[in-house]
């Protein structure tokens, strides 16, 4: 028998199945039929047929492989259903940074890995839990065991591992645990800007402050968000407010620095504060204790006290019904209904006093007499114009609604004249102060840096002339009035107004020892650029302040220290206050010749 005769094509084999299956058809000598017969022959034929089936299946499978090879090599895998090229597991978008106005990082994200388990795939849960517990001493064996024995197909074991920890877990080689690329929010400035920035939770979802209000924008991860905050000023303000809170054993405090022309908030401090990287680390404050997460500057609404005399005086002068030369009775307490308006002991002014004098020494009675000339309607309209009666618009979710009298009665008018009976957020207050000082234009406050030169037009609230007068009056407070001890900063022409409000407690005014002592300073008064506000909550007078707890003693020193630090930093030229040009600009006559307006 030759080689060639031995090779039978597949077709021939199939043919033998359908044919009569004679021994000859198999191509073997007839002598073979002796051993191959009956059932045995059938078995053999079936085996042959089925071998052809197996061979055909194999050939078919190879054709599929060949087809796939052609598909990949020539068509680049285009004909494939499971497109691999398009699915390089969409790289996680990392949350965008939050920067201060100069590009310093306030919040950033780092890529981490988080460890999870599929409990169904865990072979030996106790062993796995024991090994993991040795790597993470702060998590107990029991906690891991509980998670690994769960019924779910997914459970987080630990979020945000360091590369070292990730390596260690990999070394354990526990089947059923794996890593998910993750990201973690970091706040390099610590607690300093905590209430403004807010924070993002463990899943990098913003749940407070800027992080919450710009969550969608930040989550896209395209461009960093630039705030109006200047971290250098923030640090100065934080330092000085903290110093005052500590010195006067106060409950808390706050501060703001605002650009008087653009409304940009350059610094915003609220104490106590918290660590945004561990927002839940501290226990919930007891009733009566301040909440570290509470932003006093945006969410808190306060009766600001005598600072409101800035608005009251501006209103009176701008209405034209009161002149700078007018004199009012600042001596006799005003009785209205069951209320009596009087002044702090020692602050009383004998007889009639000029508008400037009333403002300088901050007389409640005088202020109330002044506002009588314009009436409650004009006052309400003015407060409305200054943006003090409605909830302001600001780029954080934590914004408080002002408390205003409804209806706005004459008694309310009298108390509002010296800053009681209306409560506003400090941001609103400082915005309005800026408007009065900057020439009379109110611009909305913002926490986001304005694009270059894009300063909104703003709304005129008082005339240029009234604004000029108000600057002279505010300068007078610092040079001779309630802030003369501490408010002045040589060379920077600070002007401002103190405010010491008795806090409302349980619906009525508290007695002494529950004040909100504030000061707002604006500089340089010849052409104001910055407003600096500090408020201290429940300061306790000490020896150094001769027992005083007023804004002039408690808040003004902090404002002065901030200004003396920030002035040189921001390149505000120091000037000689005694130069004739400056003198002319700041001059004001506290004892002018004028009419005496009697209380009616």
């Amino acid at each position: 028998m030759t080689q060639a005769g031995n090779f039978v094509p597949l077709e021939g084999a199939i043919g033998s199945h359908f044919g009569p299956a004679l021994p000859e058809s198999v191509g073997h000598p007839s002598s073979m039929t002796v051993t191959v017969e009956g059932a045995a022959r059938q078995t053999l034929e079936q085996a042959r047929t089925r071998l052809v089936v197996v061979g055909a299946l194999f050939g078919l499978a190879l054709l599929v492989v060949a087809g796939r090879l052609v598909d990949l090599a020539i068509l680049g895998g285009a004909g494939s259903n499971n497109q691999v090229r398009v699915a390089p597991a969409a790289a996680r978008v990392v949350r965008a940074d939050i920067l201060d106005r100069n590009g310093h990082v306030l919040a950033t994200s780092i890529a981490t890995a988080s460890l999870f388990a599929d409990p169904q795939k865990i072979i030996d849960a106790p062993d796995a839990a024991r090994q993991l517990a040795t790597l993470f001493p702060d998590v107990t064996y029991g906690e891991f065991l509980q998670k690994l024995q769960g019924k779910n197909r997914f459970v987080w074991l630990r979020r945000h591992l360091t590369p070292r920890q990730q390596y260690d877990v990999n070394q354990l080689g526990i089947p059923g645990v794996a890593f998910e690329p993750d990201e973690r929010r970091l706040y390099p400035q610590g607690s300093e800007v905590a209430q403004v920035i807010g924070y993002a939770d463990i899943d990098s979802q913003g749940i407070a402050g800027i992080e919450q209000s710009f969550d969608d924008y930040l989550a896209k991860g395209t461009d960093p968000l630039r705030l109006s905050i200047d971290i250098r000023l923030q640090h100065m303000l934080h330092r000085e407010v903290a110093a005052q809170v500590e010195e006067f054993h106060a409950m808390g405090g706050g501060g703001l620095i605002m650009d008087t022309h653009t409304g940009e908030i350059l610094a915003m401090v609220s104490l106590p504060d918290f660590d945004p990287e561990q927002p839940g680390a501290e226990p919930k404050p007891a009733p009566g204790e301040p909440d570290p997460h509470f932003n006093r500057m945006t969410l808190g609404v306060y009766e600001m006290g005598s600072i409101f005399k800035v608005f009251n005086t501006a209103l009176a002068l701008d209405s034209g019904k009161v002149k700078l030369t007018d004199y009012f009775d600042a001596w006799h307490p005003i009785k209205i209904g069951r209320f009596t308006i009087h002044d702090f002991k020692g602050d009383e002014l004998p007889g009639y006093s000029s508008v400037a004098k009333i403002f300088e020494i901050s007389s409640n009675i005088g202020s109330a007499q002044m506002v009588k000339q314009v009436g409650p309607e004009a006052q309400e309209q003015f407060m409305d114009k200054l943006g003090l009666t409605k909830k302001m618009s600001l780029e954080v979710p934590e914004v408080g609604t002002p408390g205003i009298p409804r209806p706005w009665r004459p008694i309310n008018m009298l108390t509002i004249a010296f800053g009681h009976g209306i409560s506003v957020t400090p941001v609103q207050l400082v915005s309005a102060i800026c408007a009065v000082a900057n020439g009379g234009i109110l611009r909305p406050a913002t926490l986001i840096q304005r694009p270059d030169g894009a300063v909104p037009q703003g709304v005129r609230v008082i005339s240029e002339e009234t604004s000029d007068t108000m600057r002279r009056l505010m300068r007078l407070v610092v040079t001779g009035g309630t802030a003369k001890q501490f408010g002045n900063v040589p060379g920077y022409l600070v002007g401002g107004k103190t405010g010491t409000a008795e806090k409302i407690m349980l619906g009525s005014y508290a007695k002494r020892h529950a004040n909100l002592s504030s000061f707002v300073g604006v500089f340089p008064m010849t052409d104001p650029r910055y407003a600096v506000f500090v408020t201290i909550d429940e300061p306790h007078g000490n020896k150094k302040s001769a027992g005083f707890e007023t804004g002039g003693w408690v808040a003004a020193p902090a404002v002065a220290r901030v200004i003396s630090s920030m002035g040189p930093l921001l390149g505000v030229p120091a000037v000689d206050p005694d130069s004739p040009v400056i003198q002319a600009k700041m001059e004001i006559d506290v004892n002018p010749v004028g009419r005496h307006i009697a209380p009616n």
Partner: protein
Amino acid sequence: MSTVFARTDHSVVGRWWWTVDRWTLVALAVLIGVGALLVTAASPSVAERIHLPTFYFVIHQAVMLVPTLILMLGVSLLSPRGVRRLAFGSFIVFYFLTALTLVFGNEIKGATRWVSVGPLSVQPSEFLKPAFAVVSAWLFARQHAARAAGQFFPGYLLAVAVFGAVLMVLMAQPDFGMTFVCTAIWFAEFFLAGLPMVFVLALAVMAIGGLVGAYFIFPHIASRIDRFLDPAAGDTYQVDRSLEAFIHGGLTGTGPGQGTVKLSLPDAHADFIFAVAGEELGLAATLFIVTLFGFIVLRGFARVLKDTDVFVVLAVGGLFTQFGLQALVHMGSSLHLLPAKGMTLPFISYGGSSMLALGLGTGMALALTRTRFPGSESR
């Protein structure tokens, strides 16, 4: 063919030369040549990555080739009876060694499959595989032969017992790939031996059930299948690199040694050597490799189509099923047609044990496909 041996040469080697399937021999030789080329191209980067001498794998592969060829050619000299005896002997020895791995084995990547024999590490289950194919074939065939002779031999029952025993030891390691191949061999032979179609269907269902069971019992299998079904679900890094290699290679390839996929694939010299071939040699070469495997397997089947010995038909069917299936799974995995399963491409991938075992398996297949003359057969 040459005339090295005269047709009248009746020496053992002379008879062998005129009866062995020389086409298969040539195909195997080409396959080994392609393998040597690819291992030389793919393995240096892998070796460097695990801090071995650059040509560690190349030299090892070359060194292993010598005993492999000797084993293959030596075994192919045997008669069917010799093959049967060799298979029984090696089945017992390697079954015993495989069982030993459970006790003394070196654990590598979570499974104990290797035993150290002196300086050598061998994976006894690789040798168990061809021996098992022949032993099962004989048991199936024996029952038919006994019935034809009016006797009874419980071949099927014994085949089931042997299969169960093999399954048990392989699952204990655990070695899912080897279990899969042995199961496929056994079913293929059972099918050839005349398994009724009803049972074929039932067993197919059971096999699928086994796969599903494995999915739920073994986490790494579940994860592989998950990744296959949903590439976005997890780490499909290796398969993605592999597919990129085929795309990058295109029609003509980047040229031997010029590929980049081997730099990022941990098993470029073994489980993903087909991807290296796709990138460096291109479509023409990969289709050639596919054709070679097709040729060897179908040629082997064709050789026994008119054989009158049921044992030979079944054994050759089983051995080539093993050979072909291994190639198919390897190629399918790297093309993402199948879930990722580490399986070597016969005679092409690097691997000492698998190479030597292939020598044994193909040697037996060559022996059984030799042209036999009526009467020359002895049982």
